[in-house]
């Protein structure tokens, strides 16, 4: 399998921080694999996702070194869905990405239809995303990324506000995306959600280490 994400000697600290959030970390993630990224709150998991998606260094300033190479298009679902929802209906949110890729109308319609089915949002097609529940917003943010059909998908705590049924459904979706050959990285604290991961990485005290199983994860 080819490496989809290759990070080499990655270091970052925000403006005003004395210490590196993470320092000289290197790893490779392959397509057709699901990787979970875990670690204590504040250890830099979201920041690492920003580095992999290019948000850092393009939009967030700080001291950045090392490099990230990506095979294919990347899509990211942020931890706070409010930060990526801005259109008046769910349908508009799902259309925004493919519209900006200048895809034909029929293809945009087809993608919206299939993603609405996939994540169970049909009922909310014409709802205003701002007025949805936390879990509903998380699903719309995910849908908006999936209609882009990215090769690499970064998800920051994608299950955090979902009920049990939706959590199960999204896990199935992740496994299907894996089967299609996507590289998936998701940030997660809850061990019960790590079952879908092929590999688990622990980001702690500035270093990144691969874990053998969810049971051995210790943040100490």
């Amino acid at each position, binding site marked *: 399998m080819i490496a989809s994400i290759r990070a080499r000697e990655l270091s970052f600290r925000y403006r005003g921080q004395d210490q590196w959030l993470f320092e000289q970390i290197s790893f490779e993630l392959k397509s057709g694999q699901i990787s979970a990224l875990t670690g204590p*709150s504040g250890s830099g998991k979201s920041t690492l996702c920003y580095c992999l998606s290019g948000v850092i260094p393009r939009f967030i300033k700080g001291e950045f070194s090392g490099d990230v190479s990506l095979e294919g298009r990347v899509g990211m679902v942020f931890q706070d869905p409010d930060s990526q929802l801005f259109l008046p209906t769910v349908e508009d949110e799902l259309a925004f990405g493919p519209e900006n890729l200048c895809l034909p109308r029929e293809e945009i319609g087809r993608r919206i239809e299939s993603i609405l089915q996939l994540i169970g949002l049909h009922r909310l097609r014409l709802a205003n995303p701002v007025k*949805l529940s936390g879990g509903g917003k998380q699903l719309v943010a995910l849908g908006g990324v999936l209609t882009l059909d990215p090769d690499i998908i970064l998800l920051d705590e994608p299950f955090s506000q*979902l009920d049990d049924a*939706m959590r199960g459904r999204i896990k199935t979706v992740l496994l299907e995306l894996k089967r299609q050959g996507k590289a998936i990285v998701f940030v997660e604290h809850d061990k019960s959600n790590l079952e879908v991961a092929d590999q688990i990485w622990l980001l702690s005290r500035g270093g990144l280490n691969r874990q053998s199983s969810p049971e051995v994860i210790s943040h100490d």
Partner: protein
Amino acid sequence: MIRETAIEASNLGFGYDRESSIINSLSFTLYRGETVALTGPNGVGKTTLGKLLAGILKPARGQVLLFGENTRDMPLYLMGRKIGYSFQNPDQQLFASSVAEEIGFGLKYRGANLEHISRVTAYLLNLFDIEHLKEAFPLNLSWGEKRRVVLAACLAQNPEYLILDEPTTGLDEERIKALTEIIASLRRKGTGILLISHHQTFIEQNAERILRMEGGEIRDDRFF
């Protein structure tokens, strides 16, 4: 044992517009010293109910009595003295220029003296393991750090009742364990707590009663 009523909802109804109703005729009582979990599928109205109980939203039908007073007649500052509310999205309640200021803000505007404010702030910074962030700008923190700042700011005001909407999102296992201990000590002190959560283990470890919502109604009200 006679328990003191904290919040009493009667025939509560609410919809964000005239045509739709999210909450239909709910009646229940929440007590002091009791930790209750509010659960149910996504979009069922848990957050809306939490906001109605805290007085952030006013009922379309029925009423909420907060320690015996109708929330419809209470000004916001008065409700804020009785009840602490942590939003699902911590960004919605962070505004100060430093973490320490955020935590002390409520006390400052209630006229507490500076010595008291700094003592309470120091205690909470330590309790939530955010001492190292006291000078940081709250909106630049990670989600889990923001969550802990918001919880600390709620507790600073020593509320009689606390509503926490998805308090575990962004928190690692150690921090969830620490939150469980904090909740237990609040309960011993007599504070009532409503936890809106999907986190099953957290609910089982903390709540003694579960209210399950479905279709705008309470489908199950169960004590452990």
